[in-house]
């Protein structure tokens, strides 16, 4: 944790830490404290006073069908995003690992979507599937399928999942490829000599050896789907139709800023804080285990 050789200076370390600590206090701990405080109150409509309700906001939320629906939407959404983007990335990584010629060109061509902002990914996919002018929507129409994600819940969900997964594939691809390349080739060759088919080698040798990478990516992708896909949802569906794509983070935003329901929004923030905390603990447990290997 620390050096044997250290400098002796009473004031300097505090000065060096000051900027980080000040910013952290002002913009992290103070707002988080405010969220916890506000979650126990209901402000009156004019914002002049607020009434202490204790766990009232939480009790209300947990019996509110809209909030529970948003919970379910988040679970469905993040499961679909995680499975789609990890599945596609693993498939591409396995192939990229097999090729010898041109693998770095493939890597470059697959890595760049990571740099595309979720909101930009949203606009790109919205354009292709726009019910009026979108190219894919038009060809679907020509093929007899009437695409309209503005009205259809399932299509809206499909579209936000596609845009969110598209952007995350490159991240997963990089880590899967690194994981695959770390597996000793001799192990796989030995199995090949024994006559194991590619599929069999993959499921019995490669996939189990990849499990640390897979687990790590699982946590990262869930965090991504929960918290970083706001831009995708806001640009494509704005949470609709009705509330079909309102994930938890989107609901904090729409209740807090659009609906001005501050007590409820604060309570939702606190619930999300607990979720992030749990995910962080899971992540660190995993890293700890990796260190012990």
């Amino acid at each position, binding site marked *: 944790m*620390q050096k044997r*050789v*250290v*400098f002796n200076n*009473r004031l300097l*370390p505090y000065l*060096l*830490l000051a900027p*980080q*600590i000040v*910013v*952290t206090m*002002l*913009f*992290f*701990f*103070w*707002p*988080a404290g*405010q969220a916890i405080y*506000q979650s126990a109150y209901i402000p009156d409509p004019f914002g002049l006073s607020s009434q202490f309700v204790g766990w009232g906001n939480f009790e209300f939320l947990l019996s509110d069908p809209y909030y529970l629906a948003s919970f379910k939407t988040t679970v469905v959404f993040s499961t679909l995003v995680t499975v789609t983007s990890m599945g596609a990335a693993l498939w591409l990584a396995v*192939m*990229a690992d097999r090729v*010898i010629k041109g693998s770095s060109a*493939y890597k*470059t061509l*697959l890595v760049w*979507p*990571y*740099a595309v*902002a*979720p*909101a*930009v*990914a949203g*606009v*790109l996919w919205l*354009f*292709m599937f726009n019910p*009026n*002018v979108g*190219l894919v929507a038009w060809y679907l129409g020509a093929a007899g399928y009437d695409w309209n994600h503005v009205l259809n819940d399932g299509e809206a969900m499909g579209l936000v999942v596609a845009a969110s997964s598209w952007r995350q*594939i*490159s991240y997963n691809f990089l880590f899967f490829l*690194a994981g695959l390349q770390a597996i000793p*080739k001799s192990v796989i*060759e030995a199995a*090949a*000599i024994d006559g194991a088919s590619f599929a069999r080698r993959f499921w019995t040798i490669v996939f189990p050896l990849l499990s640390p990478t897979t687990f*790590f990516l699982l946590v990262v992708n869930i965090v991504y789907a929960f*918290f970083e896909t706001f*831009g995708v949802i*806001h640009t494509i569906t704005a949470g609709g139709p009705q509330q079909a794509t309102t994930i938890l*983070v989107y609901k*904090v935003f729409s209740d*807090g*800023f659009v609906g001005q329901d501050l007590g409820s929004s604060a309570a939702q*923030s606190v619930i*999300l*804080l607990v979720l992030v905390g749990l995910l962080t603990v899971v992540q660190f447990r995993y890293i700890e285990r990796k260190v012990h290997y």
Partner: protein
Amino acid sequence: MSGMVEKRGLGTWLTHIGLLIGIAIICFPIYMAFVASTVTQPEIARPPMPLLPGSHFIENYTAALTQGINAPVWQMLLNSSIMAMGIAVGKIVISIISAYAIVYFRFPFRMMFFWLIFLTLMLPVEVRIVPTYEVVAGFGMLNSYTGLILPLVASATATFLFRQFFLTVPDELAEAARVDGAGPIRFFLDILLPMSRTNIAALFVILFIYGWNQYLWPLLITTKPEMNTIVMGIKQMFPSGDDIADWPVIMATTLMAMLPPVAVVVFMQRLFVKGLVESEK
């Protein structure tokens, strides 16, 4: 490398074809956006839109850059650049000095500070939007670069990365510096900082992309179009009613919004991968 025992040939071809199909699917949305940015609006409004680029490239990009829809795109690009640079440089500076304090000094409450920084990992902006907005509004920082940058510059990840790196620096270096009579600031500037070059560069690439791609935060605190960043400004370009959006200009803007971070990833790929892997440790 080619020591694989199994027969190559058809399998290799299939692998290449599979990869190319994957790449084609991944690149398709960008290609369509590019086509849309080179045609006229009526061509898009009467579907199906063309599949090959048109001849209005310069026209559409000029229109976007100089006029845009709410604000000219050059201004949003400038705002994004300032925000991304401010966040990347700010995070690196305050993280490297706090990591230095934690590793190279012994002082009361050291561990408390360490945990305070650590806890911020659990507080993403998305989770505390309303109260953070209130704090920033209270400081009068709405519609300002300070408001865009300052709340996002604390970084537990960058602090840990530098801490990790400093711990691998041999103790003899600090010892030698002390024997030579160099103080802590000299040692930091002359020895530690030059040694951290690659780490700083790798982190810069990741943080620049992070800053550039911010969406929710600028959406909340910039209400004036001339303070919009490009990533959040695109959504504001869509008409609210039934009017047909000016797709060619919007798509030209979308491509310009992704160009800087994509260029960073493509041209600094090695640093990018290093930064990505290290910041996840």
